[in-house]
Structure formats: structure tokens, C-alpha cells
């Protein structure tokens, strides 16, 4: 097996762990500021490193770049194998960017006055960043599984220690729910790896493409389908795809602001990333066969999420259910199994991370000021904090998918892809469009209830002005919203080659499957 030297990607990946190690030696009481600035410093440094990776990345090359591979357990064919293509890159950028927002938003948070343990909090944040980045760059199934499971632990503690009143229930539910899904994936991982004699994903995919490894497929319930479902259920719980979403509102509502931002911004994307990276290339026949079913669940998620969102009195819950709806778009984009749908899905993953992350930041800022998430407690906030209101309007509109902003580009491309898809087609596109309209209803309802109207409640008249860190965070989000909205081609270009190669891999098997199922 080839051994390779230290790759820049590994250096970037392990930067947060260096930060975590430094944090360990800082004193909780005496060095509060040092703890905060070390965390921020390392998250910014990690982000800058991903920018460097971006500048060195060759978008025309669909293969893995910055590859590093070292033996870890050669007896089983497991290696520390990391590498990135355009798909990994765009999600790395998202992860490290969201992480800075999350850390910054924690600076003004009141949770530490109640719960303390600030050092532990930032240690978990850095651990989480490391694990999430690992998920996006791991190219070995076991290493991927390790990173995937490790993300559970810090998130569990973030929700459980610094969450709302019902935090223990939410944390345990999150942990058990996600673990139940991923542990079935472990069995599928072990089966595939055991048969391929290696756990390296590119090698497994090459074996499948060349016919050297055959995972028997003869219908919706055959070996390959079960393996596909083993992976898919783990990912579907993370996304979450309807009906696996019930952990999400609890976790979101109870999590501290930074936790919600990371959850919505990055963790959910691990699910859709997993589908693109593992399900489609390793189980192409099953993916084609199951596409209409998963697509149906995606559409149900779009409409159901929007519907339930509209009924919420709790702003955070409203935003949480809107995630179910938005991620439904990503799912149908992926299972369109064509270039447009896939690219739209990838961009929509980023868009949702930025917009919904932004919405959770807004909710967090409101909560810090008023200590309530009840939508009826607000009204006329625009008059109290006009700048805040303006920024909020842009983020809300982006989440709705207003043309000119980022959300539109993603959803439009997905619908285009769905419409022209062999697997999904016109009906799916039609019902999904309904979701866009519903999104406008519940988003505008929220905005109107919170920001517009008369400033008639006494408590709302003297809100704390915005802190510098809050302004920085929101302005950055808004800038990105515009940037992606007016110049989407740059982002599409980044993932163009890698998504095409994945689609081509599936398309190679698609015709005979479609024929077989007819």
C-alpha cells in the first residue's frame, strides 16, 4: 500500500485539535478571554487554511486532491485516507465558516452565567469542528464512520449541558436516534469492506465500476438494496428525511444558539453529503431503483415541514421545521440523478447552511434580549432595532428563495433538475414548487409577527443595541447571501467536475435498471 507524506489537508483537519490541546492547559477562571480568543483564533486559522486549499484546488480535476494515505490497520485493509474534491471543498468552506459564526455568537451568550464551564464548551466546539471536517474528507469507510460517530459526542454535550429547560431529553433523544441509524450503517460498512478486501472508498467504487466487486442486485429487496438502505437510513436520520425527523425540533429548540447554528449549518449536510459520496457511487443500481421512493419522502418533507412550520408559536421551532422542508429540496435534487439536480442540491446545502444558520443566529439574538422564543411576545422590533431588522429581512428573504439571493439559485436549479429527471420527473417538480410558495407564507408570517407592526410591548422598547460581534456575524452572512445569489457560476464551477463524475458513475448502471423495473 502506498504511504504518503503529510498533506495540507491533514494539517487543516488537525488544526482544531491543536487548539483543543491548548485549551486544556488554560485556566477556566483566570484565563476566560484567552480561552475565547484561542478558540476564535483557531477557527479563523482553520478557515484561512481552507481558503488556501481552495486557491490550490484544481476544479477541472474530478478526482481527489491533497490525498494522504497511511496504514492504520493493514490486516483489515483500513487506512487513514483523506482527500478532497470540489464537493468536499465546498462543504469544508461551509463548515469552517459556520464555525466562526458559532464561536462569535457564543461571545455574547448568557449561557455561561447560568451553566458555567466555558472552557469545556469551547473544547467541545473544536472537537466538533474536527469531527465534521473529518466526515467531509475521509475516504476510508471505517475512518469516515469514526468521524461520523464522534460528531455525536460533542453535540450531545453541547445540547445537554448548555441547552434549554428540556435539554436532557433532547440530548438523549438526539444521541439514541442518530446512533440507531449509524450503527446499522456500520454493519453495511463491514459487509462492503469485508467483500472488497479494502475500506478505501475510491478503490471500492473502482471495483464496482469495473465489475470486480458485485453487490448482487435483482430488485428493491436484494443484497445491494439492503446495504443501500443501511447507509441511507443513517443519512436520512441526519438530514433529516421525513419520517426520521422527529429528533430535530427537540434538538434544535433545546440547543444553545451556537449548537443550533452548527446543527442546521453543517451537521444536517453530513447526511446529504453521505448520500452523494457513498450511497450513489457504491450502490448505483439500488440508488436508481429507490430514487422515486426517497424522492417521494423528500417531497412529503418539503410540504410537511412547511405546513408544520406555519403552525408554530415558537420561533426556533418554526425555523427548525423549515429545515425539514429545505432539506427535502436537497434530497429530491440528489435523487434526480442528473447534473442539474445534483449541482443544485450541493449549492442548496450551502445555501441552507448560511440562511438557516443566519435565522438561528437571529433567533438567538432575540432570545438573549427578551428570554422568550414565543412569536407573540415580539412585534415591531424593526422600530426598536432598525439595522437588525433590515439584516433579518434579507436573511428571511434568502430562506424564502427570492430571486437575486442565494436560496433562489439552489431551489431553481433543483427544480430544473427534477423536471428533467429520468427517475423523478414532472409530478415531483410540481409538488416541490408548492413548497416554495408555502415557504413564502410561513417566513413572511414570522417576519411580520416579529419585526413589523406596532412596537406595543413595553419590554420590546428598550432592547440592548447590537454588539460588534453580532453585527460582524450578520453582515458576513448577508454578504455571502448576495455573493452566491448574483454569482452562482463560481460555486457551480467548484463542484462541477466532481458531481459530474458521480452522476456518470450512476448513469453507467441506470438504463438497465430502469428497463428492469419496467
Amino acid at each position, binding site marked *: 500500500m502506498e504511504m504518503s507524506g503529510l498533506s495540507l489537508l491533514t494539517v487543516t483537519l488537525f488544526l482544531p485539535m491543536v487548539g483543543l490541546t491548548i485549551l486544556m492547559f488554560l485556566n477556566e477562571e483566570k484565563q476566560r478571554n484567552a480561552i475565547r480568543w484561542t478558540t476564535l483564533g483557531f477557527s479563523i486559522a482553520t478557515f484561512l487554511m481552507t481558503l488556501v486549499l481552495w486557491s490550490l484546488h484544481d476544479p477541472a480535476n474530478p478526482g481527489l486532491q491533497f490525498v494522504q494515505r497511511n496504514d492504520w490497520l493493514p*490486516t483489515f485493509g483500513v487506512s487513514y485516507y483523506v482527500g478532497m474534491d470540489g464537493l468536499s471543498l465546498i462543504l469544508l468552506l461551509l463548515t469552517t465558516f459556520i464555525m466562526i459564526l458559532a464561536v462569535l455568537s457564543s461571545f455574547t451568550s448568557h449561557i455561561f452565567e447560568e451553566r458555567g464551564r466555558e472552557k469545556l464548551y469551547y473544547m467541545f466546539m473544536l472537537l466538533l469542528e474536527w469531527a465534521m471536517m473529518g466526515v467531509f474528507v475521509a475516504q476510508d469507510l471505517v475512518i469516515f464512520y*469514526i468521524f461520523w460517530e464522534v460528531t455525536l*459526542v460533542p453535540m450531545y454535550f453541547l445540547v445537554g449541558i448548555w441547552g434549554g429547560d428540556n435539554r436532557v431529553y433532547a*440530548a*438523549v433523544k438526539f*444521541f439514541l436516534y442518530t*446512533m440507531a441509524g449509524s*450503527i446499522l450503517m456500520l*454493519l453495511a460498512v463491514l459487509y462492503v469492506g*469485508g467483500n472488497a478486501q479494502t475500506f478505501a472508498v475510491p478503490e471500492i467504487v473502482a471495483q464496482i465500476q469495473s465489475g470486480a466487486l458485485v453487490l448482487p442486485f435483482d430488485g428493491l429487496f436484494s443484497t445491494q438494496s439492503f446495504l443501500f438502505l443501511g447507509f441511507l437510513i443513517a443519512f436520512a436520520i441526519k438530514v433529516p428525511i421525513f419520517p426520521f425527523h422527529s429528533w430535530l425540533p427537540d434538538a434544535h429548540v433545546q440547543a444553545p444558539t451556537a449548537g443550533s447554528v452548527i446543527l442546521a449549518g453543517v451537521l444536517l449536510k453530513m447526511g446529504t453529503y453521505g448520500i452523494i459520496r457513498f450511497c450513489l457511487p457504491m450502490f448505483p443500481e439500488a440508488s436508481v431503483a429507490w430514487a422515486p421512493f426517497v424522492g417521494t419522502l423528500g417531497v412529503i418533507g418539503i410540504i410537511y415541514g412547511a405546513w408544520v412550520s406555519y403552525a408554530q408559536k415558537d420561533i426556533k421551532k418554526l425555523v427548525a421545521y423549515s429545515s425539514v422542508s429545505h432539506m427535502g429540496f436537497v434530497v429530491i435534487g440528489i435523487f434526480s440523478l442528473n447534473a442539474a439536480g445534483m449541482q443544485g442540491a450541493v449549492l442548496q446545502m450551502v445555501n441552507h447552511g448560511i440562511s438557516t444558520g443566519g435565522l438561528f443566529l437571529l433567533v438567538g439574538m432575540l432570545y438573549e434580549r427578551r428570554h422568550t422564543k414565543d412569536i407573540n411576545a415580539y412585534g415591531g422590533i424593526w422600530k426598536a432595532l432598525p439595522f437588525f431588522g433590515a439584516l433579518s429581512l434579507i436573511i428571511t428573504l434568502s430562506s424564502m428563495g427570492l430571486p437575486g439571493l442565494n436560496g433562489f439559485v439552489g431551489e431553481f436549479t433543483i427544480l430544473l433538475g427534477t423536471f428533467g429527471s429520468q427517475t423523478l420527473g414532472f409530478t415531483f417538480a410540481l409538488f416541490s414548487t408548492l413548497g416554495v410558495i408555502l415557504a413564502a407564507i410561513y417566513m413572511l408570517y414570522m417576519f411580520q409577527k416579529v419585526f413589523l407592526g406596532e412596537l406595543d410591548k413595553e419590554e420590546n422598547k428598550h432592547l440592548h443595541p447590537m454588539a460588534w460581534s453580532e453585527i460582524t456575524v450578520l453582515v458576513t452572512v448577508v454578504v455571502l447571501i448576495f455573493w452566491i445569489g448574483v454569482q452562482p457560476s463560481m460555486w457551480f464551477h467548484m463542484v462541477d467536475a466532481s458531481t459530474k463524475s458521480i452522476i456518470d458513475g450512476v448513469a453507467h448502471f441506470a438504463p438497465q435498471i430502469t428497463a428492469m423495473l419496467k
Partner: protein
Amino acid sequence: MTTPTLSELNIGATLPAVLLAVGTIFLLMVDIFLPKERRHLTAWLALAGVGISFVLTLANFKNQSYALADMFVADPFSSFMNMIVLISTALTVLLGIDYMRRTGIARGEFWSLLLLSTSGVMFMASANDLIVVFIALELLSIPLYVMAAFRSNNAKSEEAGMKYFILGAFSSAFFVYGAALIYGATGTTNLPEIFTAVAGITSTGGASLAYLLVGAGLIIVALGFKVAVVPFHMWTPDVYEGAPTPVTAFMSVGAKIGGFAALLRVLVTALPALAAGQSPDPVWQNTVMIIAALTMIVGNFVAVSQSNLKRMLAYSSIAHAGYILMAVAAAGNPLQSDAAAKAALVYLLSYAFTNIGAFAVVLAIEKNDGSGIELSNLIGLARSKPILAAMMAVFMLSLTGIPLTAGFTGKWFIFQSAISANLFPLAIIGVLTSVVSAFYYMRVVVNMYLTDGAGDPAEGATPYVNWAVYASFAGVVVLGLFPILAVNLTDAVTLVALNVR
């Protein structure tokens, strides 16, 4: 029959186990002559004995030789088992020194009994003959009965000793009867010779086959008692709860090591070809599979409703026996038997570190009268004892099987062997019950970290106990990060009777 010469006996190969047994007698004599205020020296002498035996084991790790007229085999399998049990014994000594003193039950004999039981486990791992298995079983068990009842003025401890003794006596009887039937069918008690005889018997069938089947069944029952698998687990929670905590820690690991070593030897070395009907797979595979499934389900589900930490860990140890039994079932597949045995070895090593670590933390918060070990006593431990709590959290994650801990390495290998042997339903039951186990392990973490409270002062966390916790923690993390270290040691392990001479 001629008397074998010394060189034919090959005493050298047996040294790690024999030395420990001889050391026990030495220890008993020394203890009498030590003045009362220096009795703690006995513990250190015991530790030294364990250390010497450990070095001897490592020095001859990959040797493969027979001793004592083919009744004893020293091979990488037994070396690995010896290594695990010696580590467990050493950790138990560290746990026991202060504990026995503060609970007022310090006696020199305790250390002799501990070493005697350890040497029993080692003989069991090396047994190449049903008679040796039986003697080792008794050598392992009888000291444990006494140790379980060591807190002699406490009713629960006496109940533990009594219960363990009576059920242990039953299981010994089962074993002897099973061994007798196998002898009746094959005319030998030597494991490789049984292997040779079985092939002929299965093809001809008849009464001999029936004897063999019943005999194998009885042996599975007897060893099932020792490793505490369902439905032979009833004694476990009571004995684990009543016995002094260091004894529980040792019992939960040592007795299982011995039991599984014998189970693997008897089933894989002697009876792999015990097939009936058309199927080439051994008949015991189905039995073991059913027991494994039941054990995982019952152990994990009942553990959920426990509030006493020792009882919870008792049921958890039952569940873990189920996971190891999954590897035993996988070893029934002739192509997978070595891989499955290796998986069981790695699992036992991970389990030993994790479980002893967990018991060490329980021991640290235990009061002198044996109370204070309810789940609620853990509330706020993260504030009062942050390091101890962090390590307990890692032990719990490891028992759950979360990556980067030893527990994941163990579960990974076990599941891999089960899948390679095509035992899919068993593997699925295994992973789903792991999720159930996450619930009660996480409850420990919830109490330590997520629930606010004053926190236990953990007065039992003396320096020795802390060392034991740190050592276990190091073992858990190293095995989680570098599983290759354990895998390399299992490289040469083979149980299949290729070595029939």
C-alpha cells in the same frame, strides 16, 4: 505406562501459570510471619508475582508447545488470555489495597486467593484436556466463592458467596457429566484427539453421536454459568452487588476470560466437526447463536431498569458476554474460526480495561459500608471530581462502542467476524441492543454532567485507585486509537486443530 521425564513434561512452557500458583503458597507463608502493621506488603508481593508472570508470558508470547503430557498447551492464544487476566489482576490489586483496609476486611489471604484464581484462569486458557479444564475451573472458582463472601459480617456478601458457590457447584457437575459423556463417545479427554475421533463418529452416527451432542450441550451449560450468559445468568447481579467491589471487578473480567478460553478451546479445537445431518456447520453453532441473542437482549434490556451501579454493570457484563458469544458462534464457521477467536481476544482485552475502569470509579464513590453506589450518587461528579468523571464518561462511551475507544475496536472486530460468517440476524440484534445499551450508559453521563448537584467527594479515590483508573483509561484510549497494537499480538493465534500430532 512409563513415567515421563522432566524434559518431556516441558515444565518451562507452564511457568507463567505454575509460578503464580507456587507463589500463592509462598505468599501464604510470608503473610503469617509479617508483623500486623506491615501486612500490606503481601499485596505488593502479589503484584510482584503478577509482574514476573507477565514478563514470562510476554517472553514466550508466540511459542507453541505442549507440556504435562499434552494436557497443557502454551500458544499465542493462551499467552494473550494470560496477558489480559494478569493486567486485570494487577489492576484489582491496586483497587483492593486501600479498599480492603477502609472497609475493615483487609486480610493477607485475600491476595493469595486472588493469585490462585488468576492461575486458575491461566490454566484454563492453556488447557488441552477436559480434565485440565475441569481442574482449572475449580481452581478459578473456589477462591472466587471465598472472595465474594469476604465482607463476612455483611449479609449481602455472604449471600453472594453462598449463591455463587451453590450455582458454581451445579455448573461443575454439569461439566463433569458432559466431559464423561464425551469420553464415553470418543475414548479420550485430550482435545485434539477428540477432534480426530469426532470426524469418524459424525459420519457413522448412532449412540456415540448422541453422547457427543449431549456432552457438548452440558459443557456449554457449565461454561455458560461461568461467563454468565442467559439463561444461566441469574446469580450474576446478586453476586456482583454483594461481593466487595474489587472482587466484582476481577470476577466480571477474570471469570469470563477463563470461561471463554475454555469454551473456544473445547468448541473450536475439539468439536468443530460436530455436525449432524446434511449441514457442514457444527450443531453447537445454532445453540450458541440463540444463547448469544438472548444474552444481548436480556442483559441490555434489564440493565435499563437498574438504579444500583454495581447491578447495572452486572447486567452490562452479561450483555457483553453475549457480544463475545457472537464471536464464538462465528468461530463455528470453519473459514472464520481463527478470525473470530482473534476478535474475541481483542474484545476481551478492551472489555477488561473498560470494565475494571468503570468499577474503579464506582469503588471510588463507594462508602465504607458499601452504600453510596446508586446512579443518583453520580450527580454532579463532573464538578466535584472532573478528571474522574471525564474518565468514567470515556469508559461509558467505550462500553457503548463509540469510536476512538477500545469498546469500538472490540465491537468492530466482533461484528466483522459475525458478518464474515454470514450471521446477519445475530449481527443486527447485536447492533440494535447496543443502542439500548447506549441509553443506560448515557444515563451515567447524564447524571455526572447534565444534572446539577453537589457532587460526591469520592473519598475512595486514593492514589492507588487513581492509578488503576488512569491505567484503564490509557488502555481504553490506546486500543481505540491504535487497534493495530492488539491485532499484531493476535497475529499467530490459531485454534483449529491443525496441530494434531
